[in-house]
């Protein structure tokens, strides 16, 4: 089966600094790919490149058989199919929760207000946020805001969801609340690429785990293999640091 997203030889530099170096990655439909690795290893940068928020310096990104790293491709067309959620929520503070969620469906996808609101309210309800629909984001807790950000990304019905450490800013109780949702999405067959520091979670939901080290994917494989029998020393050292109890 051909991949939904294909990354080949991706390279990204900031000035002299090499941040991503010949990254290869395949994401098939219904895959949940977890990017792990220490801080500064390039996880966020990779996700930003996938969403065309950064110009890459070499290599190709192919989405559904179309090379989207081509300068002639309109990034907006790509982003209609790809949803992204950021670590810092990035909700629009001047819009209510509901308006945050209906902005893109109405303005980009041309849905009617009624249809967009119905869909958004359905999703908000599903994620336990129905009572907050008319509030402004600053009034919500961190976990609630992050769930709203997820709903906002889901409202356009993306083929691929990119999640960048969406639980990093949350306290452990709220982490569970957000991860449950991601787990539900994974179970429903949503295709996702997510950067995370939650190893237990990665082990649980991932179909594939990629270990990034200094801008390269040193090792990738199914979670059972990567967490229990890593091939690379670096991976073993990293896992020993983040999972002190695991063998």
């Amino acid at each position, binding site marked *: 089966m051909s991949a939904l997203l294909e990354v*080949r*030889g991706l*390279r990204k530099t*900031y000035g002299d600094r*090499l941040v991503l*170096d*010949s*990254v*290869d*990655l395949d994401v098939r439909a219904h895959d949940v790919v977890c990017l792990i690795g220490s801080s500064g290893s390039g996880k*966020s*940068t990779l996700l*930003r490149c996938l969403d065309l928020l*950064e110009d890459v*310096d*070499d*290599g*190709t990104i*192919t989405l559904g058989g179309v*090379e989207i*790293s*081509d*300068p*002639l491709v309109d990034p907006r067309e790509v982003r209609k199919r790809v949803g992204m959620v*950021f*670590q*810092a929520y*990035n909700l629009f*503070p001047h819009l209510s929760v509901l308006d945050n969620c209906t902005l893109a469906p109405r303005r980009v996808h041309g849905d009617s207000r009624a249809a967009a609101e119905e869909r958004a309210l359905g999703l908000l309800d599903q994620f336990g946020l129905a009572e907050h629909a008319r509030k402004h984001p600053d009034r919500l807790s961190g976990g609630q805001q992050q769930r709203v950000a997820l709903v906002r990304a889901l409202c356009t019905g993306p083929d691929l969801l990119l999640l*960048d450490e969406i639980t990093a800013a949350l306290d452990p109780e709220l982490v569970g609340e957000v991860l449950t949702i991601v787990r539900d999405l994974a179970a429903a067959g949503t295709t996702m690429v997510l950067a995370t520091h939650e190893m237990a979670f990665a082990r649980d939901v991932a179909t594939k785990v990629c270990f990034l080290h200094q801008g*390269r*994917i*040193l*090792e*990738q494989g199914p979670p059972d293999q990567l967490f229990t029998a890593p*091939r*690379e020393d670096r991976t073993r050292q990293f896992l020993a640091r983040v999972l002190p109890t695991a063998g």
Partner: protein
Amino acid sequence: MTDTSPGSATAAGSAAAWTPSLRELERRAVRRRLRRRSLLVASGLVVLVLLALGVAITSSPGWPNVKELFFSWEHAKAVFPDVLDGFWLNVRLFLICEVVILVLGLLVALARVARSPWLAPVRVLAVVYTDLLRGIPTLLLVLMLGFGMPALGLQGVPISGTFWAGVALVLSYSAYVAEVFRAGIDSVHPSQVASAQALGLSRPQALRFVVVPQAVRRVVPPLLNDFVSLQKDTALVSAVAVFDAVFAARDYAAYNFNYTPYVVVAAFFVVLTVPLARFTDWLQRRWLARERAGQL
């Protein structure tokens, strides 16, 4: 199309000597072509619009008259030294007023956002000041202070019309600038004050070290707007018989029945404004580049 790089991602090495792939070179060529095309469209359109305007104006029936009245080279040359002398006064007035206005405006804005009960009278004063001074047309203020204060004949009060015209400009513009600063201060998210206070900073310290620096950056464009406006309004001092560039031009125009001096003065003001605008644009871009790099 895609040049599939060989096999597994785990293969190390080959990083040291990187040469762009064919695909990347091709992509750079496309990017270059796109950039060149948009540059071409932009410059083509600008030239076209300017040409059309030029033709429309010069082909109008009254153009020869207008040209003689407003764009006479002889008159321009003749009035140039006087205008230059006068303009030097405008420039000095502008530079001095600008500094005073910045300081006064910021102080008034800070007085308005202060919370301390001790500062309540100052706060009331600041509100009254901005409401009142923004309401009075600048020209009236210049006339009242420029003619009124010297006429008082008080001991120790300067009698120079230029001085009082400058004071009028300062009072009027500080009120505007204070409101600009206040809007900037209000636009900084409260979480910034909260995190500053969490570090143990007092509220004035939080304002001084965290809020105001961010606010100032945000309000640079509207401030520049006010300063361009101030540059032009230094011309108002001519109303109280101060011999500035506009006064010199009006003098000459009335004597020679030719309006070219006005165009010359206008050119002076434009020449002064454009570099200031470019400078602040540059400053602004530098700040943004440093603070926003890839930030999400």
